[in-house]
């Protein structure tokens, strides 16, 4: 089985790569080690945050930061998907995986800042069901995963300190969880469409919890 991972920016991303290799997958990395024929699974690890994404509406929107984060999490993500879809079409696995965060759940977030990250991810949350509406008939399935990390995504001192306080899952454990969530099938029973969890577009975190959009 062949898997493509889009980025190796974080500890989580690197852990994920080594787990897939350990489990016998052929792993390609976008821009480093390009696939030649087909891929079975596509994992987009784009999950970029900026340290400066802390402004309140009264501080004024930092549109430079908003564009920077949107470029990475949305525009580049869409370019990558378009680019690698032909490889998925040739493979048999047809699974597409993305990373997100429950902090970007419109229903759950209690924050009064984080416009750049949250608005970018909300755009992607809207994209996932559209992608599936187009691809599901051809056997595609989708996984959206919240790694529950912020230390993997930032390396500055303040973020590291925050993670010491808030971290509940280390990168390695989170990546192990992602691996299982990405490769397993979701519950179906007797071909009953009402008992087919693959029909639901959901996201789950590293503790196995499902979040609302």
């Amino acid at each position: 089985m062949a898997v493509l991972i889009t980025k190796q920016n974080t500890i989580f991303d690197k852990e994920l790569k080594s787990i897939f290799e350990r489990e016998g997958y052929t792993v390609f990395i976008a821009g480093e080690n390009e696939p030649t024929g087909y891929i079975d699974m596509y994992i987009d690890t784009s999950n970029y945050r900026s340290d400066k994404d802390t402004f309140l509406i009264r501080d004024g929107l930092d549109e430079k930061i908003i564009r920077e984060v949107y470029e990475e999490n949305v525009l580049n993500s869409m370019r990558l998907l378009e680019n690698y879809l032909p490889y998925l079409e040739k493979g048999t696995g047809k699974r597409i995986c993305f990373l997100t965060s429950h902090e970007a759940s419109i229903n759950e977030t209690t924050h009064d800042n984080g416009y750049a990250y949250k608005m970018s991810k909300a755009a992607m949350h809207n994209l996932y069901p559209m992608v599936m509406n187009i691809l599901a008939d051809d056997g595609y399935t989708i996984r959206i995963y919240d790694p529950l990390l912020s230390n993997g995504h930032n390396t500055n001192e303040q973020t590291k300190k925050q993670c010491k306080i808030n971290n509940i899952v280390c990168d390695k454990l989170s990546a192990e969880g992602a691996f299982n969530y990405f490769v397993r099938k979701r519950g179906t029973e007797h071909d009953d469409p009402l008992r087919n969890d693959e029909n639901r577009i959901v996201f789950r975190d590293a503790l196995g919890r499902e979040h609302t959009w």
Partner: protein
Amino acid sequence: MKSVIITGADRGLGLSLSKEYLNSGYTVFAGKYLEDYTLLEDLQETNKNLHIIKLDVDSRESISSAVEAVSKITNNTLDVLISNAALMGEVNCTLRKPPMDIEAVWRSFSVNALGPARLVELFLPLLDNSKRKRLCFVSSEVSCINLMRHRIGEGFPYPMSKSSMNMGIRIMFNDLYPQDYTFRLYHPGWMKRIQHDGSRSEEAMYDPDDIAAHAIKYFETDLKDEQRLVMIDFRSQEWPF
């Protein structure tokens, strides 16, 4: 006299809302974006409380000039803000029809999602001086992730932008509701629109005038549950988002 600003008011729902607010005795600041539309000017002939102001929600400079214009007339206050403008045109941006026009995703986001947030940011000093502090946003059912029905052939940018907009509104709500601001999020239904080629989309179901008559009631009525940020449609139904 109470005051309201309405963006994208050249035609469609924005124009209809302008008429409704004028009839309700408001001083209306109608955002003009389309140079070649004169329906607002026609309306102004019989309504001295209508002020037409150039307003491109994609430009901070344009919004700042609008703030200045409103401020001069209202003595630095504003009661109600209605974010209605949206970029909706056809774009080739979907899977299986390569190449996707990726920049169109940003353009939609910048107008439809950042536009409302810019508007709130820059009008806040005026809104702060009002007792009303009402922020109204026209969204859409395409922002409802659980109920997404878009398929191949339909572009990605517009629905994505409306979910980003809802997220921006949620963050503003978390911040400003404790500061006495109240929020309205509205899905107007499938309205007859003037298309880019000048034709009217007759296959759509609702007239913007009828929708505006409903919307203004929702925007104007004080609710007992202001702590809930919900999206209401033209039948007063709640939509998940």
